[in-house]
């Protein structure tokens, strides 16, 4: 029993790494631009499809396709920001959500139109490799994805802390107007941040392809989980998103075993509501940032 439990927790942590990877981009965009990006899942879907097509048309291994997927997703993010997000920056938040929902519908159904509703998957060189850790077993793709998630969280953290651009981004988070007065072009910051957020989800997409199948609505499934993660960790908090992802991963793994895999979303929702009642600022959120009214 102990080994089963240990295995479940390990599986959960590895899975949670993926959730963290998806959630980091979402929380970054929210923290800086203060826009809830409902199309975030569709960027994941896009990344997964690019990985898939690179593999099936050119035979590129998913891990090598990262080199192309990430820049492409960065560009896609820039485009989406320029066309959809920037024009609505001044609108009330409920209108902004509408626009991102619209973007999500467009992307999802374009995918459905061009690529059909089929489930598609990809094999990588290490798809079937598994790694033994004492008595525990885990698939290599999951370990790779998890390591990437740790690496990216850390890299983003360093980027925000040490580079000029990162400092400028943090300044904008603190106070838009003051940052603007200090000569920061906040629109450029928003643009770059949105691109960074979608690039993160690009990494996630490529790394997930060896594990999951892709279909046009795959993003909806993951983005709902990501929202729970982000709220649990604290809206806008990077360490929060990372840890929140791990927690949700473990919860999913345990709930799948002890309750029922089909009910895991119901369990997330209970957690979600509980967080809102008990600590709406999340684990790492700045207290008061949730604007208690």
């Amino acid at each position, binding site marked *: 029993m102990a080994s089963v439990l240990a295995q479940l927790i390990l599986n959960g942590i590895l899975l949670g790494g993926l959730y963290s990877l998806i959630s980091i981009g979402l929380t970054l965009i929210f923290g800086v631009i203060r826009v809830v990006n409902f199309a975030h899942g569709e960027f994941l879907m896009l990344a997964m499809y690019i990985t898939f097509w690179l593999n099936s048309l050119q035979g590129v291994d998913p891990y090598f396709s990262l080199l192309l997927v990430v820049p492409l997703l960065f560009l896609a993010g820039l485009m989406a920001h320029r066309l959809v997000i920037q024009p609505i920056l001044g609108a009330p938040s409920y209108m902004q959500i509408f626009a991102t929902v619209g973007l999500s*519908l467009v992307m999802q159904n374009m995918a459905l139109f061009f690529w059909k509703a089929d489930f598609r998957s990809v094999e990588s060189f290490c798809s079937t490799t598994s790694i033994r850790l004492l008595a525990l077993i885990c698939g290599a793709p999951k370990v790779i994805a998890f390591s990437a998630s740790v690496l990216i969280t850390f890299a983003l953290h360093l980027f925000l802390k040490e580079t000029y651009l990162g400092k400028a981004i943090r300044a904008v988070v603190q106070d838009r107007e003051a940052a603007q007065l200090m000569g920061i072009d906040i629109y450029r910051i928003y643009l770059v941040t949105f691109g960074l957020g979608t690039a993160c989800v690009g990494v996630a997409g490529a790394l997930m392809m060896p594990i999951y199948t892709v279909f046009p609505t795959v993003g909806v499934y993951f983005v709902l989980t990501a929202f729970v993660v982000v709220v649990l960790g604290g809206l806008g908090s990077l360490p929060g998103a990372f840890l929140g992802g791990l927690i949700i991963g473990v919860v999913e793994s345990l709930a799948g075993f002890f309750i029922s895999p089909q009910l895991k*979303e119901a369990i997330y929702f209970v957690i979600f509501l509980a967080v809102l009642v008990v600590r709406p600022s999340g684990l790492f959120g700045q207290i008061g940032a949730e604007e208690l*009214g």
Partner: protein
Amino acid sequence: MNWKRIFYPDLYIALFLSGAASAAALLVQNEFFTNLIIWIFFYASLGLSWNLIGGFAGQLSLGHAAFYGVGAYTSTLLFQHFQISPWIGILTGGIVACLFALIIGFPCFRLRGPFFTLSTIAAAEVLRILATYFKDLTGGSVGIQITAPPSFANFVFAGRLPYLFIAWGMLLVALFVSLLIEKSRLGSSLIALREDPDAAEALGIDTAWAKMAALLISAFFTSMAGIFYTQFVHFIEPYSEFSLENSIQFAMIPMVGGMGTSIGPVVGSFILTPLQELIRAWLGGRFLGLHWVAYGLVLILVVIFMPHGIVGLFRNKRIRLPERWHRFFAPVSPAKVSLDKGLVSASVLSHKGSLGEEGILLECRGVTKDFGGLVALSQVDLKIRRGEIFGLIGPNGAGKTTLFHLISGFYSPSSGSIAFRGEEISGLSPPHQVCRRGIARTFQVVKPFGNMTVLENVMVGAFCRDKNPRAAEEEALKIIAFTGLEDKAIFPAHRLTIADRKRLELARALATKPDLLLLDEVIAGLNVVEAEQVEEMIRSIRAQGITVFLIEHVMQSVMSLSDRIAILHHGEKIMEGRPAEVACDPRVIKAYLGDEYVLASS
């Protein structure tokens, strides 16, 4: 209830549109056409229900399918298992939907930010999963076929026409409820909290409760439409009930028609539903998903280019209508109200609270507020007597506005107590409770409800004491006349100049009939003439028995107005006294101008 109030053009337009559509359906006698009209009515009633919370209150729900499906499932299951008529199911389904609304609303409505939207999406998703999972009860993803023989009690009919009339009835009921709410105190509260939640709270609106009330009504009518749908198509299954697409569709109708108006969802449905049917018939069959691409584009384009919807294109024109139009609707001609008719009266009589010692209205004792390490206020003691004008001055950052936030309930003190009429109020939060007890405030950075007219803005305040819209309107008009805004009564507040916005702040606060009025820099930034007018206004407010506590930087005004003045510096009260004493006190001069001026003046 004053029925006359809802006879607005909105109602006539909606009656005409739906009546004409029904008549056309009866004349044409074509099944496809009748169906189309039924769908138009159906989506209009859903749009109207969604609009109550999404449009009026600005709380974006993308999970209304939850209420829709829960109602439908409740009614269907009751009928399948206990043969309870779906007509009764409308009531029970509505109640169950309201229960879900409570579960979602309770945690979210205390908060701002995207939490409500996320919760609604998640709720609908979870319900879909549960409905699929509990196969024995719900038939799982296979669904339940309704095979009851046609009869009125079974809510099953052989022809289309009964459905047409029921859908029409549903639309009219939803419209009527929406209009009633729009013209009532609740509607005023909802729009106010959408425009600015802080100002709404400061004017005595329990924002969490108002949102909840709107959500409950909305959930009930959404559930009713869900039951209608099931009875109309004779079939229920989890995906068609709870899908996100459904929720988006409900939201799109008011969005395109015009959110936050009662006519918007009706217009939206009349335009969008036929268009949807056409697009679906034309694109949906041949090209998978392409009609949803079109919807998505419509959403984006509407947000960017037409945020007030189709109705908004006409609304702006209405404001420019001639004066006569406004006179026609305004029950009291503002010009007739003059200053000396005893128009403003404090709510002294309406409150039972006793006065503290020697007529002390407000007493702060050792009030301290720190934000993390920063101490904004430290050990402030103040006593304000009934009927006086008390001035609070101090350099920028001295903690003056923080003190107002503490008194009005926006912050709670780190230590110390604040007593109003001898009663502790510092623990009172949210702020509307403080306002209801008789303390009104203005905001230094003015917070007008931009999309409401000046009259509507002031009515929000008046609703604090009077639930009747007509009485609130009369009260508001008197106060508008008093503050000299009568020419602008029908202007939307976002068009006002800064001087008028400050007057509006004052008017709104005054409309709540306060005993104590907290004025945060209502004079700063005005020119000399305007400043004198406002000074005169403040004196006359005091003459009506309202105690005034004001923060002001314009020394000339504060010195001539105040009976007593306190000065704050670095969060501490450094002195208090009559204006003449304060003006020559070296500590005050030092705080404002620095040491060298003290030396120079001595």
